[in-house]
């Protein structure tokens, strides 16, 4: 494995935050540089940074498009919201990991924030 030791990976995030993997199991070594929590697409477009995970309850196709355009490391859908088939297909196509959290956005973001800040 060529991943740097200091980088927090999606794999660690999935394990430590207890997330589900809807797709992107082959992308787990990708580094996570931070997170951005928002359900406003223009806010994410304007302010999220490459490598961040996006925490949201929006689960439609445009979420995948934006995450891919912004080169985010993954999308975390909160409250057990599941992506539908078309969204999964597009995420696989774009190589974007879609993850799921059983918790609401506040708790999910809190957990991920804590994990990333321990690094």
């Amino acid at each position, binding site marked *: 494995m060529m991943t740097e030791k200091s980088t927090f990976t999606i794999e660690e995030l999935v394990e430590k935050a207890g997330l589900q993997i809807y797709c992107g199991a082959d992308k787990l070594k990708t580094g996570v540089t931070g997170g951005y929590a928002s359900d406003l697409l223009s806010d994410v477009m304007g302010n999220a940074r490459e490598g961040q995970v996006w925490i949201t309850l929006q689960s439609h196709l445009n979420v995948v498009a*934006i995450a*891919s355009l912004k080169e985010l490391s993954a999308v975390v859908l909160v409250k057990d919201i599941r992506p539908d088939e078309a969204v999964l297909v597009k995420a696989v196509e774009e190589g974007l990991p879609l993850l799921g959290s059983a918790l609401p956005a506040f708790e999910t973001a809190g957990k991920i924030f804590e994990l990333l800040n321990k690094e």
Partner: protein
Amino acid sequence: MLQTYKVTGGDFVNAGKASSSVKGILKQLNVLAGLIKRVVVALYEAEVNVAAHAYSGNILVEIESDQVRIRVTDSGPGIEDIQMAMKEGFSTASKEVREMGFGAGMGLANIKKNSDTFNITSVPGEGTTVEIINKLTD
């Protein structure tokens, strides 16, 4: 290099395709990542505005060695008060569009922030033209 794309009002499935295509071209041309990001944000918001607010639009992208010039022209309701439309938070987006997370009223501000030159003209009842010019050299 000249590229053209079409955007259809209400079509959120295909909104973003032009941005994705232009991003790919700029990457191939080895344009600095930070400069590509600006173009992508600005173009994406312009595309979404046609999908959200107009009937149909044409996108013209001229890529030269030192700059990219984008012109998005739509037929649609146009904008009565551009100054008002530019204000962050102002939006006339429909409830459905807002529920998708669009319609935060930050789009035009995002375009302006991510353009070196930004022009918008509109004829109410006819349509809107947005021009975005970004330098591709530091």
